[in-house]
């Protein structure tokens, strides 16, 4: 099928500055996205991730910087000359056209011969499993089907790159998980360079080869999902990718033992640490566990303030020296959870402590 021959390219953004009137929404962003990569822009709403995507598609214009598609500078090209496929958050299917017409639109604009348009529209609809819906209107389709039409309409033009603007946010939770797998399968099959904009870290983690975390129009960190999780470069990244306990204080060495002390007197002894001075330490809730107060492994003592049952986990909020610490315990049937108000010991997996 013709769709498998898509010639995908890499994307490079160089020193992008973008403002709306007086508000700067993108601040000196430089990024390189490899050919064939599934790349995510991850960040809270208003961080500039959608703006960046729309800049690549040609709907926004930067005051400074350059956009390269496969080595070609495209900053001045209008959207219709860029050949980048974009799937919109609300799908943007044209209600006055049938599904078939929607998908054929881009090919008609390219003035392809009729038989080729027929062939490629059919192929694209088949690829997303909607060949039987060709003559329906968008409003006769469910959300998931509309999503597939939007995707078919975009890939049928064999774009150089695929841009997805929060494509799953309008679907219900179950369909979302299903569709993201479908998206990934399709991307792998076509080898299409893809940028996926999302505010959902789970979505980004499960699909992407690499993620750029954005905040306030600045790229905070770029890396694979696991790199970002294990080696966050700043507090924002640490907190945005999963829950994290963050403590601020001092690291000192006393009697050959490295000790972290926060300003309220909480003490944790660290191993394998040769850094000293005023630092923050970060650890995930699953890297600390509840044990008996009297036990040898108890590094800290605290009071159970709150308990949340999450199904596979029980999340505790434990008060230690006026600091709240989140602790996740795996839940198993018959396991007796600690009660709210109980005094418990906490044992820390210090190998997983991140020092910043």
């Amino acid at each position, binding site marked *: 099928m013709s769709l498998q021959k898509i010639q995908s390219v890499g994307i490079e953004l160089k020193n992008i500055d973008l*403002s709306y009137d007086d508000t700067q929404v993108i601040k000196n962003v430089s990024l390189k996205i490899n050919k064939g990569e599934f790349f995510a822009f991850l960040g809270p709403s208003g961080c500039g991730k959608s703006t960046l995507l729309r800049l690549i*598609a*040609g*709907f926004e*214009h*930067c*005051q400074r910087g350059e956009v390269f598609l496969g080595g070609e500078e495209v*900053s*001045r090209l*209008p*959207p*219709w*000359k*860029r*050949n*980048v*496929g*974009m799937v*919109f*958050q*609300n799908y*943007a*299917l*044209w*209600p*006055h056209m049938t599904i078939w017409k929607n998908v054929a*639109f*881009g090919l008609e*604009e*390219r003035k392809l011969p009729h038989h080729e348009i027929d062939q490629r529209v059919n192929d694209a609809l088949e690829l997303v499993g909607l060949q039987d819906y060709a003559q329906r209107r*968008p*409003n*006769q*389709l*469910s*959300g998931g089907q*509309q999503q597939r039409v939007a995707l078919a*309409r*975009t890939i049928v*033009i064999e774009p150089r790159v695929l841009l997805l603007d929060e494509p799953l946010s*309008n679907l219900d939770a179950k369909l979302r998980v299903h569709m993201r797998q479908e998206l990934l399968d399709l991307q792998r099959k076509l080898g299409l360079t893809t940028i996926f904009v999302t505010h959902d870290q789970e979505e980004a983690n499960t699909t992407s080869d690499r993620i750029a975390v954005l905040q306030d129009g600045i790229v905070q960190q770029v890396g694979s999902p696991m790199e970002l999780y294990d080696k966050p470069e700043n507090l924002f990244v640490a907190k945005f990718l999963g829950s994290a306990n963050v403590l601020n204080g001092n690291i000192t060495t006393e009697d050959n033992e490295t000790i972290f002390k926060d300003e309220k007197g909480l003490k944790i002894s660290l191993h394998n640490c040769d850094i000293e001075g005023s630092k923050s330490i970060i650890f995930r809730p699953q890297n600390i566990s509840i044990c008996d107060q009297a036990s040898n492994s108890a590094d800290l003592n605290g009071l159970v303030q709150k308990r949340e049952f999450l199904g596979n986990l029980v999340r505790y909020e434990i008060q230690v020296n006026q600091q709240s610490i989140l602790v996740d315990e795996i839940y198993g049937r018959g396991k007796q959870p600690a009660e709210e108000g109980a005094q418990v010991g906490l044992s820390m997996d210090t190998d997983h402590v991140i020092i910043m």
Partner: protein
Amino acid sequence: MTSKTHKNPGQIALFLFIALFLLSFLIIPVVKVFYVAFIDVNSGSLTLINFKDFFNTSLFIESFNNSFYVATMSVLLATLISLPLAYFTTRFEFKGAIIIQSLGFVPLIMPPFVGAVAMQLLFGSNGSINLLMDEYFGFTIPFMEGLNGVIFVQSLHYFPFILINLSASLNNIDRSMEESAQNLGSSGMRLFRRIVFPLAMPGYVAGASLVFIKVFDDLGTPLLLNVNNMLAPQAYLRISSIGIDDPMGYVIAVILVIFSLFAMWIASLALKGKDYSTVQKGGGGLAKRKMRPFERIVAYFIVILILLTVLSPHFGLTLLSFGTIWSYSVLPDGFTPDHYVEIFAETPEFMMNTLLYASLAATIDIILGTSIAYLVLRTKIRFRYWLDYAAMAALAVPGLVLGIGYLRTFLGASIPFGDAPLATWWVMLVIALSIRRLPYALRACTSALQQVSRSLEEAAENLGANKAKTIQRIVLPLMSGGLLAGFVTSFATAAVELSATIMLVSTESDAPLAYGIYVFMQSAAGRGPGAALGMVAVLIVGLGTYFSHRIIEKGRRERSIENNNQK
């Protein structure tokens, strides 16, 4: 900071073309009117002497007072008609609500000047009602004497503006507003005064100020009722009898524009920052209760009384158009279709001209409206908002003023490739009609474009369609319903516009319907054919209104289906 935007020469050309059009046919003529009003006829220098003369002439003072009095009283009477109707529909579960809703548009489909003569035959001192009252009760009521007649006809015609606005703002008050007041201990009149009334006030003021302007500016109704001591008729008479150089007509025109602006300003103050539409999802309007039997009788009595009064111009016009001779009698002496035969056989040009002018004017409106809406909403051309402001400014320019402006601005100019005067060329009338209707068409086009989501266009551009292609294949097809509705409304209202027409028509062969009605109604013998023409006008406006409602409703239904499916 320079942005790397793509300058689109086509958009700039369009912008300049529209700007030039509005400048030539709206701004310059109005400025010209203002200019002449402030110029000394003899010396040509700037002066206030014309205004001094105006306020030193007792006839003009009287006219000014009369216009103000008639406009104010019409607002009051229209309020008296609207209040009970709005109250019944919003506070009670009342079957008569359907009648009231249709009352909302029935009067609007008949231009007031069309019904004026028929009203005189029904309510005048020798009209049907007074003849009957004199016979059975021995007294008469001067409904139609002088200014009373104007007030009566105008308020019957324009009260729907108040009714519609008032009912809409009452319906937009969420039940929770009332319930939370009750929850906090308020009830009855106190609740009405402190919660319901303030929330409904902006809608009322908007409707009332609209009625005030319309009545204050109206030329046709007083002319046809032969009430000449009001501002608009005075301006018309000065220009048409004394001549185009007489400054008094211009002074009156300036006063009319200033009052229009003032009333619009009041309305905008009332509405400013008061988007009181508080209805939550799923919540209804104010709590409604069932009427008690006695209340229902009273309510039906009031509604039917108002309905009969409101329909009387239509009823009277029908009688007149089919009647043989109708004078000093309750009903015409006999009935005949002759008047209809006469107008179709002898003066078909009135109808043909109307169809031509109104459809041309409506086409111009839709093209201008769509272009302005697109430039404003979808481009970044500097000063693009000025097109919108300029087009909307036409709201404050009465047809009479625009007509005077054209006569004066294009004075002495000839039509292209000919030697007839330009100002009274039929094309100028078409342009004047399109300028008059442009504000309404522009709002229709703007809302049609606003309903086309930006992303639908971006998706097309993303797939390779350039701006022009995107407009052609995506934007226009999606706007078509709204545009059609706008076209039909512009068409129907342009078809019965009298005040600009009466200034600009020079020969009967070029004249449209409204002018024909006016000419016929001048003589007793012409009333029959005039009424028949009036019925044609009512039919055009009625059908136009009906179809534009249908189109808008259809669009709304389709959109709501779509939204439901996308959820």
